[in-house]
Structure formats: C-alpha cells, structure tokens
C-alpha cells in the first residue's frame, strides 16, 4: 500500500514523513494497547476497561468521543494524531462486540489533535457516567 509522502521498505514497514517507521493499525494496537487491554480488547473485569463493549457506543456521542481521545492511554500514546485516528477506526471495526452502525463517524487526525493534548486525570467517574447515560452495561 502506498500513499502520498510515505516510502515503503521491503519489509513492509512504512516510513512517515519524519523517517520514523509507522506500523499498521493492527500492529499499533499490539504495541500500544494489547499489553493491558488484551489481544481481543476485552480487558480485565474491574481492572482494565473493555474496548469491545464501549468503544463503539462511546464513539456515537460527542462526550463519548471526547472521553476516548482524552483517556490517557490514547492521549499520551506514542502515536501521532493520524495514527491514533486510524487505530481507533480499526478498533471500532475489529475489536467490538457492538456492530458498527451506519451513523458511525470515523475519527480524524484533526479531531484527535484538538482533544488529546488535554488528557483526563479523573477517568473513573466520567467513564461510569458515560456508561450510565448510554445504558452500556457496566461490566468491564
């Protein structure tokens, strides 16, 4: 796969415009998220949130999207804004128990950049409120 401004090496690793390697969304999930959220995004009940049950429902409302982009694991990740957006959209399609509805709007680099530089510091209460407001069952 080739796209503007990026060179592709023989190993299949793409280079970003600054020369640093950029991985596919699948691999970025492995390197940045899987260590805690597990290979399938299920997390660990009571300790590590489930992506499978919450990413898509959260992404359908503005407060939920803001939460996703400001939660420290996303906001403070080593990924640039574009790679965060690509990764989140990949996760919504590949690591979700909730099927992607027709009104799902892809995250964009611009949207990521607007919110990630203000990471959340109190997360638990906000997450619980979102779960209540969106009627997502609280397990995980």
């Amino acid at each position, binding site marked *: 796969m080739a796209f503007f401004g990026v060179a592709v090496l*023989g*190993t*299949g*690793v793409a280079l970003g415009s600054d020369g640093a390697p950029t*991985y*596919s969304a*699948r*691999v970025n999930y*492995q*390197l940045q998220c*899987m*260590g*805690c959220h*597990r*290979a399938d995004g299920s997390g*660990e009940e009571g*300790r*590590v949130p489930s992506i499978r049950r919450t990413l898509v429902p959260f992404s359908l409302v503005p407060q939920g999207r803001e939460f996703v982009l400001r939660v420290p*694991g996303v906001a*403070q990740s*080593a990924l640039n804004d574009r790679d965060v957006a690509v990764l989140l959209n990949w996760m919504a399609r590949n690591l979700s128990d909730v099927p992607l509805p027709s009104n799902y709007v892809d995250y964009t680099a611009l949207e990521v950049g607007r919110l990630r530089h203000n990471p959340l510091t109190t997360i638990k209460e906000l997450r619980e409120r979102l779960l209540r407001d969106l009627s997502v069952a609280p397990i995980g």
Partner: protein
Amino acid sequence: MKWLDQITEGSARAIARRSSRRSLLGALGGLLIGASGLPLLPVARGAAKPAALSADPGDPAACEYWRHCAIDGFLCSCCGGSQSICPPGTDMSPVTWIGTCHNPADGKDYAISYNDCCGKSSCGRCFCNRNEGDTPLYRAAQSNDYNWCAGDSKTNIPYHCSTARIVGVAN
C-alpha cells in the same frame, strides 16, 4: 512506591542469581525434570497460539536468541517451560508489555509479548537482560523493568520467569 518494589525485586533477583544453594537446587531440579525441561504437569498456556514462523533460528534457552532483544528476567525455556509456555505451577500474567525484535532468518520484525510467568519464586536460571532500542523511562507501559506479575489479580506478585511470545509480524 514502585522504586521500592524495583529495588527489592532487583536485590532479590541478584541474591537468587548468586546463591549457590539455589543454583544447586536449580541444577538438581533440572536433572529431576529432565534436561529438555519437558513439563510433567499440566501447564498454563498463553492466550493465543504463537504465529507460525517460516524460520525461528537459535536456542530459546540462550540470551542471544533473537526474540530476547528486549527481555529482562529468567528465561522460561530454562525453567521447565518454553519461550511461549509457562512452567508447571505458574500462571501467565495476561498484563504485559510488547516490543519488537528483528528475526535474522527472514529479515522481518516481529511483535514480541514478554509475558511473565507468576506464582512461584524466581526460577534463578538463565538470567537475561537485553535492552535493544531502549530509551529512558518515558512510558511505563513499555518498560521491561517492571514485575508484570503485579498487573494481574489472579497470578499474584511472585515472579518466576519471562516468556517471549510472538504476536505477529510488525509491519
């Protein structure tokens, strides 16, 4: 107070490495279970089967093994397990960190999951600490210095050994 945990962990590991009684027991234990280290009891396996490799060169019980490019701990291959399977009596901590290593046989980079095996005291054999591509501790979730056994409520904190599971090709 993680620094206190780390200091305690480090000194415990250092003592375990140097202790002649432990290394004698370790050697005897190795003889008892067989030099190949085949487990005799049911073992805890990783969550997913390792990806099939076209080539996997080198000795998994050696520090120079290609998957060990960023490992920090005792090699489970020397402790009754393997590079992807925990020894009998230990459980694999599902919370871990994941890095990449270069496979010299096929020229590809692979994502490696360094899950710790937990629930028994330190194996004490084949200590290996490599830090290729390491940086100062900018991101805790990408450090090999932590006792990752502490991240799981089921396995408890005692650290036994480290695996090097292949998650996939890093492309």
